[in-house]
């Protein structure tokens, strides 16, 4: 169902007349999908002099996998499927582990899958969802339902305006906030 759908994250949406609720929001977001989107993620770490900026592109493939092509700080490709994460490093090394081992990626996978498919039911299966704000500046707050996931990730907030997603904020249970800004693919 998701396969072939291209990400619609950067479309400039026209003014919406409908009421702002999850179903209408998802409809608006999936109206005209885009192929690929660029992202810049910021992570703070006390080990680093400056915040760590992770940049790359995000896309879906035919098998419904979410592919994060990382360009910096080190080139690598992260392939997220329903059960696994595969990491292909620039130097040719590979790793594969269960999606559950990387809670940040698991939340991202389920959230983006639900949003891109316009599937409110799938989204509600994994998250408690709240939509706030108005069409010009909305927040979709997703709180993981599974205890195991909730132990690591408090919530994912997706912010946007009209039919455009501008930013994710991943609030981790230990207080760290990972912010991801989206822009046109380079």
């Amino acid at each position: 169902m998701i396969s072939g759908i291209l990400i619609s994250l950067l479309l400039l949406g026209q003014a919406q007349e409908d009421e702002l609720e999850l179903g209408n929001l998802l409809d608006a977001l999936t109206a005209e999908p885009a192929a690929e989107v660029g992202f810049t993620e910021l992570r703070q770490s006390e080990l680093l002099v400056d915040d760590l900026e992770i940049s790359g592109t995000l896309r879906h493939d035919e098998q419904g996998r979410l592919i994060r092509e990382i360009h910096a700080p080190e080139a690598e490709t992260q392939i997220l499927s329903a059960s696994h994460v595969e990491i292909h490093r620039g130097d040719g090394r590979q790793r594969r582990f269960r999606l559950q081992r990387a809670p940040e990626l698991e939340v991202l996978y389920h959230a983006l899958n639900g949003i891109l498919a316009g599937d409110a039911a799938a989204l509600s299966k994994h998250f408690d969802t709240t939509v706030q704000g108005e069409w010009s500046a909305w927040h979709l707050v997703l709180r993981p339902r599974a205890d195991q996931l909730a132990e690591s990730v408090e919530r994912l907030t997706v912010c946007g305006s009209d039919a455009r997603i501008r930013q994710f904020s991943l609030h981790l249970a230990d207080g760290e906030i990972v912010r991801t800004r989206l822009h046109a693919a380079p």
Partner: protein
Amino acid sequence: MKRSWAPLLTLVLLATLAVLLIARLQVDHRIDAFLPPPADTHQAMVMDQIGSGAGGRLIFAAISGAEPDRLVEASRQVADKWRSLASVVRVNNGELSQEQELLELLDTHRLVLLPDIESRTEPAAVKSALAERLSELALAGSRVRDRVRSDPLGLVQAVAERLAPSHAPETRDGVWLDTRNNGDSNRALLMIVSAHPPFATAEQARLIDQLQQRLASISSGELDLTLAGAPVIAADSAERARTASIRLSVFGGLFVLVVLLWAWRSPALLVAGAIPLATGVVCGLLTVTLLFDGRIHGLTLAFGFTLLGVAIDYPVHLFTHSARRAALDARDIRAPLLLGAASTVIAYLAVSASASPGLAQMGAFSAAGLAGAAAATLLLPRLGTRGPTYLPQRNWKFPNAAWLPAAAGGLALIVLAGLGAERWSNDLTRLSPVDADLIQADIELRRQLGGGDVRYLLVASADSLENVLRATEDTVNQLDDAVDQGLLSGWQAVSDLVPSRREQQRRLAAWPSTERMAGLLDRADARFTADAFAPFLEDLATAAETPPITPQTWQTTPLATQVNALLTQTPQGWRSIIAPVGLDDPAGLAEWLSAGQLPAELIDLRATSEIMVASWRRDAGISLAAALALIAAFLWLQTRKPALTARIMLPPLAAAACTAAVMSLADGGLTIVHLVGVLLAAGVGLDFSLFAHLRSDHRDQSSRTRHAVNICALSTGGVFLILGQSQIGMLRMLGLTVALGVLLSWIFTRLSRTECPLHPT
């Protein structure tokens, strides 16, 4: 009236005693009980490899029957369920990342677990390591923060990768998954450490049941579980021995009952006839209890019931010679019975001198049992049972053709000589009471999980732990050349986990000073803060204070099985195994090892086991030949007539030679079990022959003797034929050999003339 109760009372007493003795015995089902103790390192290795060695509590499991992803999931689910069982110490499915204690140990010893410190501390290598740490921070943030701080060079991960080399079972998502099983199917592999020793067979059997139930609870019938390992073999062999004992005693007992009822039609005689048997069993059990510390092998117990077949001959002779008389009378049969029993006991004493504990038990059990049965038969008349009133007159007529046994025996010897080495079978697994498929599964799974070759092992031995580790390292350091030459593709050695002290000190000395290391890290990547790696530098500064790694270090982790399998303390010192992987040219590697004067040798397990079996059989053959010579000397001493001795011994010897020739041709070569069977049959045949030479003042003596020998041949041959139907290879070989030997002995005895009678003294 009072006297008619005496035999029944005696029998009940004896049976109670037998039950009490059996209840006190510890039944042992070790796979190697029937094998001789190993004579050298090579043989010790063979014994270890068939499951009696260090891995006695290890159960290997393979789950198949589904797609790889489902198998991986099943492996995880079932591992959790198995871990919750009280009888399970540990379950390892390859997921070392879940083992907190192991990770801590790897962390503690990370500075000495890798050999290439110099190359890892070059500026370019440090730079690349820090780039990887940055990737990890980008992926997992604060969850990997502490790990990055204490291990910027990624040593723990490098150690983990080194410990799970590419030739070990493949992993999928961290779980062992074997996809190379000849393309048949994929299998998830697991190792379970049982809380019970392998000889606690009841507990092991219960554990095996629980393991299967737990798998069934997560499966909708599609998953198959294969279990192997010493505990599984022990439980299986216990079950087989138990079934065999029950079946043999039920069918054998029923058979003997029918024969005896048919022969005399008297229930009172049945009771009386059972007394020598019960006495024999009690004497056998008592002897084993006293001589073998109350431990008996399951098969000795099963074998003990075959005494039924031999010992029943004694009362048969007694009854036949007492028929139609007022009371039982042992006078007529005393001489041949004592001679026969004494010779058979001598033969069994020779067997009990065997180096194999199982055979020694069998010999001792049988010698004591037969002596007891003979004595009880001679004392039986005192219980006052009346002799049989019924004595059939019909008798098979045999021509007088004493040349025939001699000719047949001669021909058999020529055949045996002509067969040459072919007449022997050196296959070790035939001598094990365990199902050959089970052993095969065991060896195969063990090797899959060990990652090495099934047949060849490199072995280093030394007087101390340090020296054997050094010898292992010296060998391993050179093996790269052998890999370059294409002799093998890899290996597994204990030195990866337990480096020698010398090597640990060398590695510690190879680290740069704390200040230099701090400088290296600083210059490698400016994005990290100055004190980002303080924990690592602190560990480096105090590394010399960390206690060195010993085999003990890993004992509470899943790696213990690997350490214990590869490193063994022996009476002479220590032994270390280097398991070669992808060994294509064993001869080339052996040559390469000796050319380089390396402190390890290549052992061919199959060749060693064959040499071992052959040399054991030679030893046993010599003691059996000695037994024969002793019997001949004993008979000659008793009769003082060499010609009579020769006549008495001809039928059983000819039958023995023919039996050996037939079994060698028909049963794929003779094993030591066949030899024991031939000896047993010769003992029974000797009894036939001795009785056939009995002279008496009674007119109908020879017809009575013929009648008794017929009944004996039928009952003994029948019991062993029943034994020959056993599922256990050893018992089957023994049963068929003895049945054939008894049949031939009977025919040959009946064909021989009996002109030189024995005096009934």
